[in-house]
């Protein structure tokens, strides 16, 4: 019972097909309140597509999606605001729901950009804009937060601070987080469940178990894997160039 109450999204054998080619296939995952699920994998492995399925932006062409969350917030990977629109940070914070000003300022303070509140969005740097995006998602107080490479373009110190913030928000709001990240150190140290993607789920599990998994080692190379794990195992499958499993 309790288990079910905490469930936000369940994907069962989901996949997305584009012009008769599967971008991702056989994706099953669950996101629970207060837990961080991370997607890792090389470029084009279907991380963003999987996140979009969880968000109901993309329909799954197979399997089923159950979504129990009432309030979702999204930090997309690439976002370009059209320069033809005069949009200030404060307007952007209110984009999909009305948030009162104190809460806006509070959220902007958390990501360190409260001084930019009346600036036009198109005058912000990439990193500043990324911080605004994260602040906006937090200010919505969602029960499901999807972050697609949230710290891209953020300076080195900021990166660590923002990752810590994400972890903190997860506990404070008791929200479920689906995170796409290339920062393996954070993934391994702070998340609850890791899913390794390459067009399908290569392996998944707790960070501890993942680093020992042979598919993970194959996907990220021995050097990266070794920094996080002392173990190495036999490969149980290998990939073709499109990511599908070689038989």
């Amino acid at each position, binding site marked *: 019972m309790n288990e079910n109450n905490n469930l936000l999204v369940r994907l069962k054998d989901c996949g997305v097909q584009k012009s008769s080619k599967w971008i991702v296939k056989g994706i099953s995952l669950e996101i629970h309140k207060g837990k961080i699920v991370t997607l890792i994998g090389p470029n084009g492995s279907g991380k963003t597509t999987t996140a979009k399925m969880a968000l109901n932006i993309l329909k799954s062409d197979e399997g089923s999606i159950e979504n129990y969350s009432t*309030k979702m*917030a999204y930090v997309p990977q690439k976002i370009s605001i059209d320069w033809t629109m005069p949009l200030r940070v404060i307007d952007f914070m209110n984009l999909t729901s009305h948030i009162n000003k104190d809460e806006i300022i509070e959220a902007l303070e958390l990501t360190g950009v409260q001084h930019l509140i009346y600036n036009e969005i198109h005058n912000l740097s990439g990193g500043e804009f990324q911080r605004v995006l994260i602040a906006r998602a937090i200010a919505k107080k969602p029960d499901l937060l999807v972050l697609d490479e949230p710290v891209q373009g953020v300076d080195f110190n900021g990166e660590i601070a923002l990752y810590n913030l994400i972890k903190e928000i997860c506990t404070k709001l008791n929200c479920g987080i689906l995170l796409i990240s290339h920062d393996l150190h954070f993934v391994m140290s702070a998340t609850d469940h890791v899913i390794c993607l390459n067009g399908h789920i290569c392996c998944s599990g707790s960070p501890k178990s993942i680093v020992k998994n042979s598919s993970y080692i194959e996907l990220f190379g021995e050097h990266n894997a070794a920094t996080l794990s002392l173990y190495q195992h036999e490969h149980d499958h290998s990939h073709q160039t499109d990511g599908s499993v070689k038989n």
Partner: protein
Amino acid sequence: MFDEFFIRALVAGVGIAIVAGPLGCLVIWRRLSYFGDTLSHSALLGVTLAYSFSLNIAFSVFVISAVVALLLVSLQKKTKLAGDSLLGLLAHSTLAIGLVLIGFLSYIRFDLMGLLFGDILAVTTADIGLVWIGGSIILIILYFIWKSLFSATVNYDLSAAEGMRPEVSNFIFTLLLAGVIALSIKMIGALLITGLLLIPAAIARNISNSPRQMIVIAILSGILSVVVGLFASLEINTSSGPSIIVVALLLFIISLVPLEIKGQLQKR
């Protein structure tokens, strides 16, 4: 003081400017100016059909514009042509069909110039009612879908993820655009409607720094263009549509001045 037809044109024109303001801003933000053009070119076909089957002009223009918009969406899915090519294809073929049909309708006295460039003499009391009632309906619908439409304009995925249903509001927006074209065709003419949508919004973009401000300024400069344009049209006996657009252009040039001053100040 003024002839009645002129008062009628003024009242109708101001109504159109109020509706065109917010829609024009959305057209600019979403880079849909060519889409607006396509809809208004197809409006001519709507007018000829209205004459052929003695339908209400605004109704028939609205239907044709909406059909063209839907056609565009389905062609975009089916063909590999880019959006601008498809728009060009639809704009010119519907315009051509409209002009061919006019040729067949030689038994009706036809004021082609009026259709293409607008005619204030043509505005009737019924038209005023149509503009204000139709315009109010458009604005009310726009008010209700605004949050969804605006968030989807900023970022579609974000809007979809956060439950704003942008696909629905995008569809409704297309119909509203068809609606404003239907309302303004008599006064502005098929060829120049996009100008009344675009130019006031462009003026507003030059001198505003928030979305709300931009909409208000777009409405005000639209009204100013219509009023001054109609006076000029009366005084120097020109078509109403072009006169209004020329005034709007002059306002646009004036709106560049503050930008220029700001630029100079920043250089110092």
